[in-house]
Protein backbone atom coordinates (compact mmCIF):
# COMPACT_ATOMS: atom_id res chain seq x y z
CA UNK A 1 0.00 0.00 0.00
CA UNK A 2 2.77 2.40 1.00
CA UNK A 3 4.79 1.59 -2.10
CA UNK A 4 1.80 2.28 -4.31
CA UNK A 5 1.40 5.76 -2.87
CA UNK A 6 5.02 6.63 -3.51
CA UNK A 7 4.51 5.55 -7.12
CA UNK A 8 1.95 8.28 -7.56
CA UNK A 9 4.48 11.06 -7.12
CA UNK A 10 4.91 11.80 -10.83
CA UNK A 11 1.19 11.71 -11.50
CA UNK A 12 0.79 14.13 -8.64
CA UNK A 13 3.52 16.29 -10.17
CA UNK A 14 1.49 16.38 -13.39
CA UNK A 15 -1.78 16.87 -11.55
CA UNK A 16 -3.16 13.64 -12.92
CA UNK A 17 -4.71 12.35 -9.70
CA UNK A 18 -8.42 12.51 -8.95
CA UNK A 19 -9.59 14.72 -6.10
CA UNK A 20 -9.58 11.89 -3.61
CA UNK A 21 -6.26 10.42 -4.72
CA UNK A 22 -4.75 13.85 -4.67
CA UNK A 23 -5.82 14.57 -1.10
CA UNK A 24 -4.55 11.14 -0.01
CA UNK A 25 -1.25 11.70 -1.75
CA UNK A 26 -0.78 15.13 -0.24
CA UNK A 27 -1.28 13.62 3.19
CA UNK A 28 1.23 10.93 2.28
CA UNK A 29 3.77 13.45 0.96
CA UNK A 30 3.54 15.25 4.25
CA UNK A 31 4.75 12.21 6.15
CA UNK A 32 6.96 10.36 3.63
CA UNK A 33 10.50 11.62 3.62
CA UNK A 34 11.36 9.52 0.54
CA UNK A 35 8.71 11.32 -1.45
CA UNK A 36 9.74 14.71 -0.10
CA UNK A 37 13.27 14.08 -1.23
CA UNK A 38 12.16 12.80 -4.58
CA UNK A 39 9.92 15.80 -5.00
CA UNK A 40 12.96 18.07 -4.62
CA UNK A 41 14.80 15.91 -7.12
CA UNK A 42 12.08 16.29 -9.77
CA UNK A 43 11.91 20.02 -9.18
CA UNK A 44 15.63 20.26 -9.80
CA UNK A 45 15.56 17.96 -12.82
CA UNK A 46 12.82 19.91 -14.53
CA UNK A 47 13.98 23.39 -13.59
CA UNK A 48 15.83 24.19 -16.84
CA UNK A 49 13.18 22.74 -19.18
CA UNK A 50 11.09 25.91 -19.72
CA UNK A 51 14.15 27.50 -21.29
CA UNK A 52 13.87 25.04 -24.15
CA UNK A 53 10.99 27.12 -25.48
CA UNK A 54 11.50 28.91 -28.77
CA UNK A 55 11.59 32.65 -28.35
CA UNK A 56 8.18 33.97 -29.45
CA UNK A 57 7.20 37.62 -29.40
CA UNK A 58 3.79 38.02 -27.77
CA UNK A 59 1.09 40.10 -29.48
CA UNK A 60 1.78 43.78 -28.80
CA UNK A 61 -1.72 44.33 -27.46
CA UNK A 62 -1.55 41.46 -24.97
CA UNK A 63 -0.12 43.43 -22.08
CA UNK A 64 -2.96 45.91 -22.10
CA UNK A 65 -5.60 43.19 -22.23
CA UNK A 66 -4.05 41.10 -19.50
CA UNK A 67 -3.36 43.91 -17.06
CA UNK A 68 -6.78 45.48 -17.62
CA UNK A 69 -8.43 42.20 -16.78
CA UNK A 70 -6.20 41.48 -13.82
CA UNK A 71 -6.79 44.87 -12.23
CA UNK A 72 -10.49 44.81 -13.11
CA UNK A 73 -10.91 41.50 -11.34
CA UNK A 74 -9.20 42.78 -8.25
CA UNK A 75 -11.49 45.79 -8.07
CA UNK A 76 -14.38 43.46 -8.60
CA UNK A 77 -13.33 41.46 -5.59
CA UNK A 78 -12.87 44.47 -3.41
CA UNK A 79 -16.30 45.68 -4.36
CA UNK A 80 -17.86 42.36 -3.72
CA UNK A 81 -16.30 41.67 -0.38
CA UNK A 82 -18.68 43.86 1.66
CA UNK A 83 -21.56 42.33 -0.25
CA UNK A 84 -21.04 39.07 1.53
CA UNK A 85 -21.76 40.60 4.91
CA UNK A 86 -24.32 43.23 3.99
CA UNK A 87 -27.45 41.49 2.84
CA UNK A 88 -29.55 44.49 1.96
CA UNK A 89 -27.17 46.09 -0.50
CA UNK A 90 -28.08 46.00 -4.18
CA UNK A 91 -26.31 43.46 -6.34
CA UNK A 92 -22.80 44.42 -7.38
CA UNK A 93 -22.73 46.01 -10.77
CA UNK A 94 -20.27 44.21 -12.91
CA UNK A 95 -19.62 46.99 -15.36
CA UNK A 96 -18.21 49.37 -12.84
CA UNK A 97 -14.97 47.56 -12.11
CA UNK A 98 -14.00 47.17 -15.73
CA UNK A 99 -14.74 50.79 -16.39
CA UNK A 100 -12.60 51.78 -13.47
CA UNK A 101 -9.93 49.55 -14.88
CA UNK A 102 -10.16 51.34 -18.16
CA UNK A 103 -9.46 54.53 -16.28
CA UNK A 104 -6.64 52.91 -14.37
CA UNK A 105 -5.16 51.66 -17.56
CA UNK A 106 -5.00 55.20 -18.83
CA UNK A 107 -2.93 56.05 -15.82
CA UNK A 108 -0.41 53.35 -16.69
CA UNK A 109 0.88 55.52 -19.50
CA UNK A 110 2.34 58.83 -18.52
CA UNK A 111 1.17 60.76 -21.52
CA UNK A 112 -2.40 59.71 -21.73
CA UNK A 113 -3.74 62.65 -19.86
CA UNK A 114 -2.55 65.23 -22.33
CA UNK A 115 -5.88 66.20 -23.68
CA UNK A 116 -6.83 68.27 -26.61
CA UNK A 117 -9.83 67.93 -28.85
CA UNK A 118 -7.59 66.49 -31.56
CA UNK A 119 -6.77 63.52 -29.38
CA UNK A 120 -10.37 62.61 -28.78
CA UNK A 121 -10.11 59.34 -30.62
CA UNK A 122 -7.05 58.18 -28.76
CA UNK A 123 -8.63 58.89 -25.46
CA UNK A 124 -11.58 56.71 -26.21
CA UNK A 125 -9.51 53.72 -27.12
CA UNK A 126 -9.18 52.36 -23.62
CA UNK A 127 -12.85 52.33 -22.55
CA UNK A 128 -13.77 50.72 -25.84
CA UNK A 129 -11.55 47.79 -25.07
CA UNK A 130 -13.76 46.64 -22.27
CA UNK A 131 -17.20 47.84 -23.22
CA UNK A 132 -19.25 49.54 -25.85
CA UNK A 133 -19.11 53.26 -26.27
CA UNK A 134 -22.60 54.31 -27.24
CA UNK A 135 -21.90 57.99 -27.71
CA UNK A 136 -19.04 60.32 -27.16
CA UNK A 137 -18.62 64.07 -27.27
CA UNK A 138 -15.76 66.47 -26.91
CA UNK A 139 -15.97 68.98 -24.12
CA UNK A 140 -14.45 72.38 -24.54
CA UNK A 141 -15.08 75.93 -23.45
CA UNK A 142 -15.17 79.33 -24.91
CA UNK A 143 -13.23 81.14 -22.24
CA UNK A 144 -10.91 78.35 -21.00
CA UNK A 145 -8.93 77.79 -24.16
CA UNK A 146 -6.80 74.87 -23.07
CA UNK A 147 -9.18 72.95 -20.87
CA UNK A 148 -11.03 70.17 -22.58
CA UNK A 149 -11.74 66.50 -22.73
CA UNK A 150 -14.42 64.01 -23.56
CA UNK A 151 -17.62 62.63 -22.20
CA UNK A 152 -18.66 59.15 -23.26
CA UNK A 153 -21.68 57.06 -22.60
CA UNK A 154 -20.51 53.54 -22.15
CA UNK A 155 -22.87 50.67 -22.17
CA UNK A 156 -22.16 47.46 -20.40
CA UNK A 157 -24.64 44.79 -19.40
CA UNK A 158 -27.68 46.97 -19.90
CA UNK A 159 -26.30 49.70 -17.68
CA UNK A 160 -25.01 53.00 -18.97
CA UNK A 161 -22.14 54.89 -17.49
CA UNK A 162 -21.00 58.35 -18.14
CA UNK A 163 -17.24 58.59 -18.35
CA UNK A 164 -15.78 62.08 -18.27
CA UNK A 165 -12.11 62.74 -18.72
CA UNK A 166 -10.85 66.28 -18.59
CA UNK A 167 -7.46 67.90 -18.88
CA UNK A 168 -5.94 71.29 -18.13
CA UNK A 169 -8.80 72.26 -15.88
CA UNK A 170 -8.26 75.42 -13.85
CA UNK A 171 -7.17 74.72 -10.28
CA UNK A 172 -9.73 74.65 -7.52
CA UNK A 173 -9.48 75.95 -4.01
CA UNK A 174 -11.18 75.07 -0.76
CA UNK A 175 -14.40 73.13 -1.20
CA UNK A 176 -14.71 73.98 -4.89
CA UNK A 177 -15.70 71.10 -7.14
CA UNK A 178 -16.46 70.52 -10.77
CA UNK A 179 -19.91 69.04 -11.14
CA UNK A 180 -21.20 67.30 -14.22
CA UNK A 181 -24.82 67.63 -15.35
CA UNK A 182 -27.04 65.85 -17.79
CA UNK A 183 -29.36 68.34 -19.42
CA UNK A 184 -32.84 67.58 -20.65
CA UNK A 185 -34.79 70.59 -21.90
CA UNK A 186 -34.29 73.16 -19.19
CA UNK A 187 -33.78 70.59 -16.43
CA UNK A 188 -30.40 69.58 -15.15
CA UNK A 189 -29.68 66.26 -13.46
CA UNK A 190 -26.52 65.78 -11.37
CA UNK A 191 -24.04 63.30 -12.86
CA UNK A 192 -21.15 63.24 -10.46
CA UNK A 193 -18.30 65.52 -9.59
CA UNK A 194 -14.53 65.59 -9.72
CA UNK A 195 -11.56 67.54 -8.50
CA UNK A 196 -8.62 67.68 -10.88
CA UNK A 197 -5.13 66.74 -9.78
CA UNK A 198 -2.05 68.98 -9.69
CA UNK A 199 -1.70 68.89 -13.47
CA UNK A 200 -5.34 69.76 -14.03
CA UNK A 201 -6.48 66.29 -15.04
CA UNK A 202 -9.68 64.87 -13.68
CA UNK A 203 -12.05 62.10 -14.54
CA UNK A 204 -15.19 60.46 -13.29
CA UNK A 205 -17.30 57.43 -13.97
CA UNK A 206 -20.94 57.98 -13.24
CA UNK A 207 -23.44 55.14 -13.40
CA UNK A 208 -26.54 56.69 -14.90
CA UNK A 209 -29.40 55.55 -12.71
CA UNK A 210 -32.01 57.81 -14.28
CA UNK A 211 -34.72 56.16 -16.31
CA UNK A 212 -33.76 55.35 -19.88
CA UNK A 213 -36.79 57.37 -21.00
CA UNK A 214 -34.81 60.56 -20.56
CA UNK A 215 -33.63 62.12 -23.77
CA UNK A 216 -30.47 63.97 -22.87
CA UNK A 217 -29.91 67.09 -24.87
CA UNK A 218 -26.57 68.11 -23.52
CA UNK A 219 -23.88 67.58 -20.95
CA UNK A 220 -22.54 70.39 -18.83
CA UNK A 221 -19.79 71.02 -16.32
CA UNK A 222 -20.10 73.67 -13.68
CA UNK A 223 -17.73 75.08 -11.12
CA UNK A 224 -19.43 74.71 -7.75
CA UNK A 225 -18.38 76.41 -4.54
CA UNK A 226 -19.44 73.27 -2.64
CA UNK A 227 -19.93 69.68 -3.77
CA UNK A 228 -23.13 67.59 -3.96
CA UNK A 229 -25.52 70.18 -5.27
CA UNK A 230 -28.86 68.99 -6.61
CA UNK A 231 -28.92 71.89 -9.06
CA UNK A 232 -26.02 73.95 -10.37
CA UNK A 233 -25.33 76.95 -8.18
CA UNK A 234 -22.03 77.96 -9.72
CA UNK A 235 -21.01 78.98 -13.19
CA UNK A 236 -21.49 76.58 -16.10
CA UNK A 237 -18.11 76.35 -17.76
CA UNK A 238 -18.72 73.83 -20.47
CA UNK A 239 -21.71 72.68 -22.39
CA UNK A 240 -21.78 70.18 -25.21
CA UNK A 241 -24.82 69.14 -27.18
CA UNK A 242 -25.51 65.45 -27.46
Amino acid sequence: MERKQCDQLLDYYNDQLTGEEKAAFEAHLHSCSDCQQEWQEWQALTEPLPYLSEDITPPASMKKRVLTNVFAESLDQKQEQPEQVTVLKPKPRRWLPSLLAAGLLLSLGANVYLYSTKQTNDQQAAPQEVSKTAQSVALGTVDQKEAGGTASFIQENQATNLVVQMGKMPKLSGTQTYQVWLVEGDKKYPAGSFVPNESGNGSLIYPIHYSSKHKWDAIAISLEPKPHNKQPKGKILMLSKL
Partner: protein
Amino acid sequence: MGRISDEELYELVQADNKEALEQLYDRYEKLLFSFSYKIVNTSDLAEEAIQDVFMKLWRKKGIYTADKGKFSSFLLTVTRNTCLDLLRKQSKNQVELLDKDLEREQTESTEETVTWNEERQRLQEAVSTLSSEQQEIVQLFYFKGCSQATIAEKKDLPLGTVKGRIRLALQHLRKVYEERGDRIGT
Protein backbone atom coordinates in the same frame (compact mmCIF):
# COMPACT_ATOMS: atom_id res chain seq x y z
CA MET B 1 23.13 47.89 -11.25
CA GLY B 2 20.70 48.29 -8.36
CA ARG B 3 18.06 46.44 -10.28
CA ILE B 4 15.15 45.57 -8.09
CA SER B 5 14.88 41.80 -7.67
CA ASP B 6 11.87 39.70 -8.59
CA GLU B 7 11.39 38.83 -4.96
CA GLU B 8 11.40 42.50 -3.98
CA LEU B 9 8.89 43.28 -6.70
CA TYR B 10 6.67 40.51 -5.46
CA GLU B 11 6.79 42.04 -1.97
CA LEU B 12 5.43 45.25 -3.48
CA VAL B 13 2.78 43.30 -5.37
CA GLN B 14 1.59 41.97 -2.07
CA ALA B 15 1.11 45.54 -0.96
CA ASP B 16 -1.17 46.12 -3.98
CA ASN B 17 1.44 47.98 -5.98
CA LYS B 18 0.30 47.89 -9.60
CA GLU B 19 3.55 49.20 -11.03
CA ALA B 20 5.40 46.31 -9.42
CA LEU B 21 3.10 43.79 -11.05
CA GLU B 22 3.54 45.59 -14.33
CA GLN B 23 7.31 45.39 -13.97
CA LEU B 24 7.16 41.67 -13.30
CA TYR B 25 4.89 41.38 -16.31
CA ASP B 26 7.37 43.22 -18.51
CA ARG B 27 10.21 41.02 -17.33
CA TYR B 28 8.49 37.73 -17.89
CA GLU B 29 5.92 38.32 -20.61
CA LYS B 30 8.08 36.93 -23.39
CA LEU B 31 9.44 33.94 -21.51
CA LEU B 32 6.04 32.95 -20.14
CA PHE B 33 4.38 33.45 -23.50
CA SER B 34 6.98 31.36 -25.28
CA PHE B 35 6.84 28.64 -22.65
CA SER B 36 3.03 28.62 -22.63
CA TYR B 37 2.95 28.51 -26.40
CA LYS B 38 5.19 25.46 -26.37
CA ILE B 39 2.67 23.69 -24.16
CA VAL B 40 -0.69 24.86 -25.48
CA ASN B 41 0.24 25.54 -29.13
CA THR B 42 -2.06 28.51 -29.68
CA SER B 43 -1.60 32.17 -29.07
CA ASP B 44 -5.07 32.54 -27.53
CA LEU B 45 -4.56 29.82 -24.96
CA ALA B 46 -1.08 31.08 -24.16
CA GLU B 47 -2.54 34.49 -23.44
CA GLU B 48 -5.29 32.98 -21.34
CA ALA B 49 -2.67 31.13 -19.32
CA ILE B 50 -0.65 34.27 -18.74
CA GLN B 51 -3.71 36.15 -17.63
CA ASP B 52 -4.54 33.36 -15.18
CA VAL B 53 -1.01 33.42 -13.82
CA PHE B 54 -0.98 37.18 -13.23
CA MET B 55 -4.46 37.01 -11.81
CA LYS B 56 -3.12 34.52 -9.26
CA LEU B 57 -0.12 36.71 -8.47
CA TRP B 58 -2.35 39.72 -7.96
CA ARG B 59 -5.21 38.16 -6.10
CA LYS B 60 -3.79 35.28 -4.11
CA LYS B 61 -1.57 37.18 -1.77
CA GLY B 62 1.12 35.02 -0.28
CA ILE B 63 1.05 32.54 -3.16
CA TYR B 64 4.84 32.87 -3.33
CA THR B 65 7.15 32.62 -0.36
CA ALA B 66 10.92 32.46 -0.30
CA ASP B 67 10.89 28.81 0.78
CA LYS B 68 9.48 27.96 -2.64
CA GLY B 69 12.85 28.74 -4.21
CA LYS B 70 13.64 31.31 -6.83
CA PHE B 71 10.70 33.45 -7.90
CA SER B 72 11.37 32.71 -11.57
CA SER B 73 11.21 28.94 -10.98
CA PHE B 74 8.03 29.35 -9.02
CA LEU B 75 6.51 31.49 -11.77
CA LEU B 76 7.40 28.95 -14.44
CA THR B 77 5.92 26.12 -12.39
CA VAL B 78 2.65 28.01 -11.92
CA THR B 79 2.61 28.78 -15.64
CA ARG B 80 3.16 25.15 -16.57
CA ASN B 81 0.39 23.96 -14.25
CA THR B 82 -1.98 26.59 -15.62
CA CYS B 83 -1.17 25.60 -19.21
CA LEU B 84 -1.62 21.90 -18.56
CA ASP B 85 -4.93 22.65 -16.95
CA LEU B 86 -6.08 24.67 -19.95
CA LEU B 87 -4.82 21.97 -22.28
CA ARG B 88 -6.91 19.35 -20.51
CA LYS B 89 -10.06 21.46 -20.53
CA GLN B 90 -9.45 22.23 -24.17
CA SER B 91 -8.87 18.67 -25.33
CA LYS B 92 -12.07 17.60 -23.67
CA ASN B 93 -14.02 19.91 -25.93
CA GLN B 94 -12.25 19.93 -29.22
CA VAL B 95 -9.34 18.73 -31.24
CA GLU B 96 -6.18 20.69 -30.98
CA LEU B 97 -6.29 23.90 -32.95
CA LEU B 98 -3.17 24.90 -34.71
CA ASP B 99 -2.52 28.54 -34.54
CA LYS B 100 -1.73 29.69 -38.04
CA ASP B 101 -2.04 33.40 -37.70
CA LEU B 102 0.14 34.00 -34.71
CA GLU B 103 0.79 37.67 -34.65
CA ARG B 104 4.48 38.24 -34.46
CA GLU B 105 4.31 41.90 -33.83
CA GLN B 106 7.61 43.30 -32.78
CA THR B 107 7.69 44.57 -29.26
CA GLU B 108 10.67 46.29 -27.82
CA SER B 109 13.02 44.17 -25.77
CA THR B 110 14.43 46.23 -22.99
CA GLU B 111 17.18 45.37 -20.55
CA GLU B 112 14.42 44.51 -18.14
CA THR B 113 13.13 41.65 -20.27
CA VAL B 114 14.28 38.17 -19.36
CA THR B 115 16.06 36.52 -22.28
CA TRP B 116 17.26 32.95 -22.47
CA ASN B 117 18.95 32.44 -25.84
CA GLU B 118 22.11 31.06 -24.42
CA GLU B 119 20.28 28.64 -22.12
CA ARG B 120 18.09 27.47 -24.95
CA GLN B 121 21.01 26.74 -27.21
CA ARG B 122 22.77 24.72 -24.57
CA LEU B 123 19.58 22.86 -23.75
CA GLN B 124 18.85 22.09 -27.37
CA GLU B 125 22.32 20.72 -27.76
CA ALA B 126 21.77 18.60 -24.69
CA VAL B 127 18.42 17.37 -26.01
CA SER B 128 20.05 16.35 -29.27
CA THR B 129 22.22 13.92 -27.34
CA LEU B 130 19.09 12.07 -26.15
CA SER B 131 17.61 9.20 -28.15
CA SER B 132 14.43 10.10 -30.01
CA GLU B 133 12.47 7.90 -27.61
CA GLN B 134 13.92 9.81 -24.66
CA GLN B 135 13.07 13.10 -26.32
CA GLU B 136 9.48 11.99 -26.82
CA ILE B 137 9.20 10.84 -23.24
CA VAL B 138 10.41 14.20 -21.97
CA GLN B 139 7.93 15.92 -24.28
CA LEU B 140 5.01 13.78 -23.10
CA PHE B 141 5.92 14.05 -19.45
CA TYR B 142 6.94 17.67 -19.11
CA PHE B 143 5.34 19.58 -21.96
CA LYS B 144 2.14 17.56 -22.25
CA GLY B 145 1.76 16.60 -18.59
CA CYS B 146 0.82 12.99 -19.37
CA SER B 147 0.33 10.45 -16.61
CA GLN B 148 2.75 7.56 -16.27
CA ALA B 149 0.04 5.24 -17.55
CA THR B 150 -0.49 7.32 -20.69
CA ILE B 151 3.23 7.43 -21.40
CA ALA B 152 3.46 3.67 -20.89
CA GLU B 153 0.64 3.17 -23.35
CA LYS B 154 1.90 5.61 -25.97
CA LYS B 155 5.46 4.35 -25.86
CA ASP B 156 4.51 0.72 -25.34
CA LEU B 157 6.48 0.44 -22.11
CA PRO B 158 5.78 -1.46 -18.89
CA LEU B 159 4.20 1.00 -16.43
CA GLY B 160 6.81 0.30 -13.80
CA THR B 161 9.65 1.46 -16.01
CA VAL B 162 8.27 4.83 -17.03
CA LYS B 163 9.50 6.81 -14.06
CA GLY B 164 13.00 5.39 -14.35
CA ARG B 165 13.17 6.31 -18.00
CA ILE B 166 12.01 9.86 -17.47
CA ARG B 167 14.51 10.29 -14.67
CA LEU B 168 17.35 8.88 -16.74
CA ALA B 169 16.55 11.17 -19.66
CA LEU B 170 16.30 14.25 -17.44
CA GLN B 171 19.46 13.41 -15.53
CA HIS B 172 21.34 13.03 -18.76
CA LEU B 173 19.91 16.28 -20.06
CA ARG B 174 20.89 18.15 -16.96
CA LYS B 175 24.39 16.71 -16.92
CA VAL B 176 25.14 17.66 -20.53
CA TYR B 177 23.53 21.03 -20.02
CA GLU B 178 25.62 21.83 -17.00
CA GLU B 179 28.81 20.61 -18.62
CA ARG B 180 28.28 23.15 -21.35
CA GLY B 181 28.12 26.19 -19.23
CA ASP B 182 27.28 27.83 -16.01
CA ARG B 183 24.00 27.14 -14.39
CA ILE B 184 21.01 29.27 -15.24
CA GLY B 185 20.70 32.37 -13.21
CA THR B 186 24.37 32.65 -12.36
